[in-house]
């Protein structure tokens, strides 16, 4: 990988790498814009993402102390309304002393910056931290737990938090055992997936992440291999560039593993909007 001084690793970019090295190269190194569709049916995919984004926006407003009735006024879609009501019922059962929503955190691994954006981070009275990630899905069934175990997000989110000191430069890092990651599904509010963290896990993750990042940074351009399993290409915009088919796969199919809450991390970080006139 060529030197890229403004590059940050994230759960998304590392996930891309482990799924297909070539996609990582095209998307993050070559920054190749390829305007093909990612998934079909196209407008439903767009609308679903919009719904996911609206849900995130409402929850963010909730944690900025807007009254739920005021927030609810902007929801016209019945499905999102149902998610929202599920959220209100769920959050009423939680207690915490501090919360921060839609916040970006960063640490360095082997000298390279790694970022994580938490939908919600809360601190409980007992000093434990919980990271919540809201997951919406286009399918009828909730994704299986196994789908999350190996996800980069499951590894990176608690790890990044474990590296923070929060204003105590001389104090130890946050105890890994005090961290929990919860994937919460507005469509399946009773079935969250919970991932407790531990020191052993942290040690293992740190090594894995350091090795992975090292592998990427020393890999020469051109050595980023195309994924063998061509099923992945059905949900990849670079399909025609790689000669891996014509039509995008359906977002409803079982092997679709799409990110419904689209967020461009670079835009989030460089939140500097320009006005020309």
């Amino acid at each position, binding site marked *: 990988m060529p030197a890229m*001084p403004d590059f940050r690793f994230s759960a998304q970019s590392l996930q891309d790498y482990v799924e297909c090295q070539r996609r990582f190269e095209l998307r993050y190194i070559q920054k190749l814009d390829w*305007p*093909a569709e990612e998934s079909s049916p196209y407008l439903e995919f767009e609308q679903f993402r919009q719904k996911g984004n609206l849900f995130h926006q409402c929850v963010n407003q909730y944690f900025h102390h*807007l009254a739920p009735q005021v927030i609810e006024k902007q929801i016209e879609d019945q499905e999102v309304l149902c998610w929202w009501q599920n959220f209100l019922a769920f959050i009423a059962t939680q207690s915490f002393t501090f919360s921060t929503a839609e916040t970006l955190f960063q640490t360095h691994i082997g000298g390279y910056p790694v970022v994580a954006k938490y939908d919600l981070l809360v601190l409980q009275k007992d000093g434990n931290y919980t990271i919540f990630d809201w997951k919406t899905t286009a399918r009828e069934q909730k994704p299986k737990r196994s789908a999350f175990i190996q996800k980069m997000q499951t590894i990176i989110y608690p790890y990044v938090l474990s590296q923070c000191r*929060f204003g105590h430069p001389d104090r130890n890092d946050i105890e890994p055992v005090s961290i929990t990651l919860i994937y919460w599904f507005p469509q399946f509010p009773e079935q969250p997936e919970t991932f407790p963290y531990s020191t052993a896990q942290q040690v293992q993750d740190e090594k894995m992440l350091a090795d992975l990042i090292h592998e990427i940074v020393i890999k020469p351009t051109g050595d980023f291999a195309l994924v063998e399993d061509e099923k992945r290409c059905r949900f990849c915009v670079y399909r025609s560039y790689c000669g891996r088919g014509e039509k995008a796969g359906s977002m409803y199919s079982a092997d679709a593993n799409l990110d419904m809450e689209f967020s461009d991390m670079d835009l989030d970080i460089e939140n500097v909007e320009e006005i020309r006139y």
Partner: protein
Amino acid sequence: MNIQQYNSLQQEVIESEINTHLFLEGPFKSGKTSAATARLKHLADQSNPEHQILILTPQHTLSQAYQRCLLESDFPSGVIPTITTLAGLSRQFIRLFWSMISENSGFQARSASPTFLNMESAQFFMEQVCQPFLAKGYFLEVHINQARLFSQILDTMNKAALIGYPLEETAPRLTAAWNGEAIRVKHYQQSQECALAFRKFCLQNDVLDFSLQIEIFRNAILANSSLRQQFFKPYHYLIADNIEEDVPCLHDLLLELSDQIPSMLLIKDLHAGFRSFLGADPPSADRLRSICSQNFTFTEQFRVSSPMHAFQSAMTHCIMRKNSTDISPDALQAYTLQNVQFYPEMINSICDMVDHLVHEEQVPPGEIAILSPYLPDSLKFSLTTRLQSLSIPYLSTRPSRTLAEESVTNAVLVFAKHAHPQWEIPITSEELRSALMVLLPGCDIIRASLLAQNTLKANHHLEHFSTIPEFTRTRITYAMGNQFDVILDWIDQYQQSTQVPLDVFLSLLFGEVLSQPGFGLHNDIDNAVLLTRLIASIRDFRLTFQSLAEQQHIDSSQLFMETLQRGLLPASFYRDEPDLDTVTIAPAFTFLMKNKPVRYQFWLDIGDIGWWERLDQPLTHPYVLNRNWDPSKRWTDAQEYQANQSSLERLVRGLLDRCEEHVYLYVVRLNQAGINQSSPLLSGIQLFLKRTMGVKNHA
């Protein structure tokens, strides 16, 4: 962080008590931002999710030192500081509190979320709103094109919001200061009428141009302390850099926040305020001293060559006609003055010198900037063509072509028209021919013409290649013709299914056909970039204009096509240019706002009056629509002269501050129109030459 690398004054800033407000000023390159980034790391060590850091700059390019600092491996782990601008803050605020503020602010459409307009979409709506006024004969005597007319009306609206007075006061303010023909007063009135109609339109449709965005943010934040507290609650530390380039509204906000945010570092560049035509207000920034318990002034400039410093000092004195008897002989080493007869001679001379620097002196191209007051397409074209032929990489900060002018745009839109006959937008034989040359590999002009002539039928309909007589098919070649038929077959199939918006159509056509092997866009990275922008632009258009298109009972794709043909859209915006090792070709002001010094500068045609004179703006006025303007006064020619002089002095100082070794000044005897010219910049250099006549050793 190694504190030893900073001088004692910098160390004092870095280590000052955290919970206090500091005001730091100094000239460019005096180490202010270095001290600020070191303090930033210190603050980041203390920060946590409840005590976050907010960094404000007037525009993105001015935040790069902070962006880089966050990436350094010794930057503490934790919450990433928020780096933003007034525009970014206000958008974030409005998105977050939209459901609360939309009703109180008079929005009527009850949309779930606000729609923000960019410059192009604002101009589009402004055009719609202004049509009835233009039909009545408004602005008949104003001789500027419509795009400039609308942008000036929008400018008056932006000024009202940034400075903080009601929109209705614009015409009275301009009228009170006007000193010339009475017709201008009528135009001020007409402009205000259009602005108010535009504002009404925005409120009715839940769309926000920049002025409305700022006005709502300002009113809500300044009037509602609980909203302000809620929004800024996470922030305990604030750094605002280049506050002299920011607007009074931002300064008001900082004054309001001074009690809520315990730690502020406010940084002001001396001798700047380059963005004054965008509302930058250095005197307003000075008000912020009052909230700071400590003031620091850095005077020592780092890495400044003494010849350049001497030249800068002498030149600014000459421009302002101040005495400067003791010009250092060093000043003569800093520049080269080149006299040429015509423009092409100047272009050749500059490119030859750049070639010499890059290829013989091994100067990295990124250390060279070619600057002029404006950058007309013809000038840019001549420079870039010549540099290209010399294999010198360059980056022009002004895009010269809109997306509508790109051949790939035309190519895909030809087939979009064919796929949507209900739009009734004609396809011409020329555009079809050009499209075929882009989309079918190896298709030359003769084959493309033959294919176009034989397949384009009445009613914008394209016939298949297979329907052409055998003899012609052979001349075109089957390989090419069959590919053409693949595109038409795909469109036939598309027409039998549910139709989709234009952006989705193009994306499908690209992904499923045009980028597949055997087509012209297969692995064509450059055109893919252009198409990505086009598709994103159409999608933005669709999402912004959906309700308007519904009101007018036309689909948004058709509205886009019509708007494109009128030359108003789309935005050919380019995201930030990467920091590459390339020669910069830019308007001088754009270069200043990059805030990145170079070793060599070339100033084009210093006799051009554009170096001194501001743009003719018959409907607005940067000095009158300004907080520092005394409303009982009239704007006189003497004030105009003085303002231009000061602005030229600032520009020259700013440019030379950002030039580390040598500046090449070009005087062209006859301009592009063949006219002999002069300008106060040229007069300044002539006075400098006179004053240094006795000084020896000038090469």
